[in-house]
């Protein structure tokens, strides 16, 4: 199939179906409502299920229930809605059930606004729900990449028996770009018989599966958390993805940026290059696991004097950038969080100010 022009939200929806997800539960919220609109029409055509929950709290537990039964399942929402799902997300990670969550982020806190934002970085990568858990977090920078990441999200969720969250700022959902869906569309079902409560008849087994999150015995709970920790460590080894940009130059400034913001930075980097100013960038494609090693190594470049975290939040990812750079370079922040995406010119100004200072 050739290229088609699609909105990010619609492309995410179509990619989920092509990844074999036939169970979608959601509650509408701007700027991701087109996912629900698209799947309300499309799911019946493929004998799938779209059910609108009475709230995001309910949706979170619908996801938990379906996943515990071994179904390939997804929801999409936007920032305030994802907050409401936080409790269920914690339970799903505790129960080690696979699921895909999509957050098309809008400005916060509170109701905030409906325009693009990246202010849910902490929520996605550090928690949102309670307890020691992690999500595998992917952050596309284009509609095409959103499709590709959706195709990867389901197998990764099943591989790690852990929810995967795809975060896109509002623009990733609202923008239309040409997309191509991969030809090989079938993702084989993973064997869930070992843990899913999918019925003893279907799996012809006499072992009873139990999905639970309550461990009253402290030793048992500690062992359970160690097991989860080992899994998150494995993700760090295996699942990191990032894109280097202009890192083969003698760059003076290292930018770390993701999503739509990283595209703005690319344009700024190209414009600066024309002026003879070299800037390198690491674009995290996974926010957890974070490209720690890549950023550490990029910061070691001799010509590089300062690092700049460019994000549509008031300085969240910068904490991870600082952690990776381990004090080797000063780390600065540039961003905006009202819904206006910073322009290339604003990024250029920020870079030039830093160069003058360092």
């Amino acid at each position, binding site marked *: 199939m050739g290229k088609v*022009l699609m909105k990010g939200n619609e492309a995410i929806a179509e990619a989920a179906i092509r990844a074999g997800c036939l169970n979608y539960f959601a509650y509408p919220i701007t700027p991701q409502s087109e996912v629900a609109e698209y799947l309300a029409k499309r799911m019946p055509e493929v004998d799938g299920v779209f059910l609108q929950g009475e709230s995001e709290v309910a949706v979170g537990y619908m996801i938990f229930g379906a996943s515990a039964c071994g179904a390939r399942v997804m929801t999409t929402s936007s920032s305030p809605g994802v907050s409401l799902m936080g409790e269920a997300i914690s339970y799903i990670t505790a129960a080690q059930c696979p699921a895909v969550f999509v957050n098309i982020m809008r400005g916060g806190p509170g109701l905030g606004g409906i325009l693009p934002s990246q202010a849910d970085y902490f929520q996605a990568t550090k928690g949102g729900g309670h307890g020691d858990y992690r999500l595998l977090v992917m952050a596309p920078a284009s509609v095409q990449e959103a499709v590709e990441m959706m195709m990867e999200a389901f197998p990764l969720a099943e591989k790690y028996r852990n929810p995967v969250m795809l975060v896109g700022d509002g623009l990733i959902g609202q923008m*239309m770009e040409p997309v191509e869906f991969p030809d090989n569309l079938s993702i084989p079902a993973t064997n869930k018989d070992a843990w899913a409560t999918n019925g003893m008849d279907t799996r012809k087994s006499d072992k009873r599966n139990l999905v639970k999150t309550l461990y009253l015995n402290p030793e048992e709970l500690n062992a359970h958390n160690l097991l989860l920790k080992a899994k998150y460590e494995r993700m760090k080894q295996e699942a990191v993805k990032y894109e280097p940009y202009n890192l083969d130059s003698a760059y003076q400034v290292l930018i770390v940026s993701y999503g739509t913001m990283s595209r703005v930075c690319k344009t700024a980097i190209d414009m600066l290059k024309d002026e003879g100013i070299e800037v390198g960038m690491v674009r995290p494609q996974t926010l957890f696991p974070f490209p720690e090693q890549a950023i550490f190594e990029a910061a070691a470049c001799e010509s590089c004097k300062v690092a700049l975290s460019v994000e549509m939040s008031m300085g969240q990812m910068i904490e991870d950038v600082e952690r990776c750079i381990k004090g080797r370079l000063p780390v600065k922040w540039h961003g905006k969080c009202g819904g206006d995406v910073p322009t290339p010119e604003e990024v250029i100004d920020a870079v030039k100010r830093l160069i003058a200072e360092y």
Partner: protein
Amino acid sequence: MQNEVMFAGFGGQGIMLMGKILAHAAMEQGLEVAWIPSYGPEMRGGTAYCTVVVNERPIGSPIIRNPRHLVAMNRPSLEKFAPMVKTGGVILINSSLIDIGAGRTDVDALNVPVNEIAAEIGAAKAANIVALAAFVSRSHIVDFELMREAVKNEFAAKAKFIPLNMKAVDRGAEIAQA
């Protein structure tokens, strides 16, 4: 080279659709393209706008403050966005609803009474198509015939509207070249 066009007007004028058809044509031409809507509160009653970015190379920033071209379908849009257009760009002014000029001497300002033209051919709702055709014909941002095909495609499910829209395309092109 990168080209950007902003389509602006009020809700109901088919602003988003003009952009979408152009984006479609650009894709068919093998170009990289991004269509960026305004989806903020301004959609409800005020100015609605979308931007289409076209490039031979992958598109970096989809956020454009200074587009090369502007298609202004109502006066508030022209007043708001005309000062932002790059030197040498095309500003299409819907003179049916706008009684002022672009206020610029460094752009190619094109006055087209798109509502009157659409009414003349008996397709009042196709005013946006008249404007799109006039703009593409003047700016050459994409191949004109691919744009025509994209209009046909858009109405594929309502084929009875195609002949009128083709008339709108032809009239738009004529007036842009007049």
